[in-house]
């Protein structure tokens, strides 16, 4: 299969603004977009820059906009992209080079929700007990790989980058609904902000973008309801 790759290129050292580069690649139908990008990088233009590691949708390195939609390049097969595969860096993140964006603001927001279990009390011996139901309560949000596909697909985030974004809320959800954690109100307080959960307008782009098939909007909704019931 011969497919045209349109890649949005930007080299901070030589370009004043991004431009579209076009490349032809020979791929198999079951190759990933990542394989196609590698073909370009390895055999045509070594300056093409992207992040990747695991190549099977688990490390969260290679989220990008593929044919107008956020996805992991290693999880989209060439047979599903059509004749032209158009690739660009995640939106609304500071662009570093080609497909690489600055993730630091994203992680700063992640850190803002205190993404770690807080519970000073330890059992005398062995593990804390947790029922299967309690464990299932937050299972969905433990799947997050911090790829930023959701946050950068959110129209509310495009409009205002101060929005903490779905990924951080997903991470907060993972702890708020873990019955072993004792600091739910700290996290809820952080999210009870104009730029917290309330900036979410239930747009659902995040759900579509999430490569881990997390029901992101549901998680956000549950946090909103928790805030309502918590009575602030």
């Amino acid at each position, binding site marked *: 299969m011969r497919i045209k790759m349109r890649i949005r290129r930007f080299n901070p050292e030589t370009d004043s603004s991004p431009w579209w580069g076009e490349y032809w690649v020979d791929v198999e139908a079951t190759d990933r977009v990542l394989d196609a990008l590698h073909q370009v990088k390895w055999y045509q233009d070594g300056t093409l820059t992207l992040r990747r590691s695991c190549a099977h949708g688990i490390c969260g390195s290679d989220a990008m906009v593929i044919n107008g939609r956020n996805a992991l390049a290693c999880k989209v097969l060439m047979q599903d992209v059509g004749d032209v595969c158009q690739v660009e860096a995640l939106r609304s993140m500071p662009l*570093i080079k080609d497909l690489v964006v*600055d993730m630091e603001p994203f992680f700063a*927001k992640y850190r803002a929700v205190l993404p770690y279990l807080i519970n000073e009390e330890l059992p005398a011996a062995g593990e804390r007990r947790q029922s299967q139901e309690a464990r299932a309560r937050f299972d969905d949000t433990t799947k997050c790989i911090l790829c930023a596909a959701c946050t950068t697909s959110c129209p509310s985030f495009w409009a205002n980058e101060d929005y903490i974004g779905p990924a951080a809320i997903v991470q907060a959800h993972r702890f708020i609904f873990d019955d072993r954690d004792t600091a739910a109100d700290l996290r809820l307080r952080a999210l009870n902000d104009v730029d917290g959960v*309330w900036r979410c307008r239930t747009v659902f782009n995040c759900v579509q973008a999430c490569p881990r098939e997390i029901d992101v909007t549901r998680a956000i909704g549950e946090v909103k309801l928790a805030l309502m019931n918590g009575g602030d």
Partner: protein
Amino acid sequence: MTVTTGRAARVKTRYGAPNHEGRIWLFMRLSGLVMFVTVVFHLLYMHMVVRVENITFENIDARWSGPAGLFWRLFDASLLFIGMAHGMNGVRFSINDYVHNRFLNLMLTGIVYGIGGLLILAGSLAIIFGVGGLGRLIGMG
């Protein structure tokens, strides 16, 4: 520590300032629920049953008069207050999304609320005094 581009440094990382955004959120839903009944009824009743052509001065006057008139005045007042509160806040959402300059943001919000206040006042006066009522009061019309 990675890259320290100008933008990264500017990003908001402290969240959790006390604010009423949650209550506003609830208000938007509750007012929506109420208006789902009242506004849709008002719309379909006025446009399909009464027909816009017939909503003349006399028609409004008739609707707002008599014992049933009190009900209609209250009904219309609810439309006015809830609709304006909900609508103004909706406009504020948009301003907050797109206008990041704090000063400009404050200005625009102020204008929207100012105009909104005036309109609510105007609408209330109309409902209280009835059609033509204001004119009679100030000796016009």
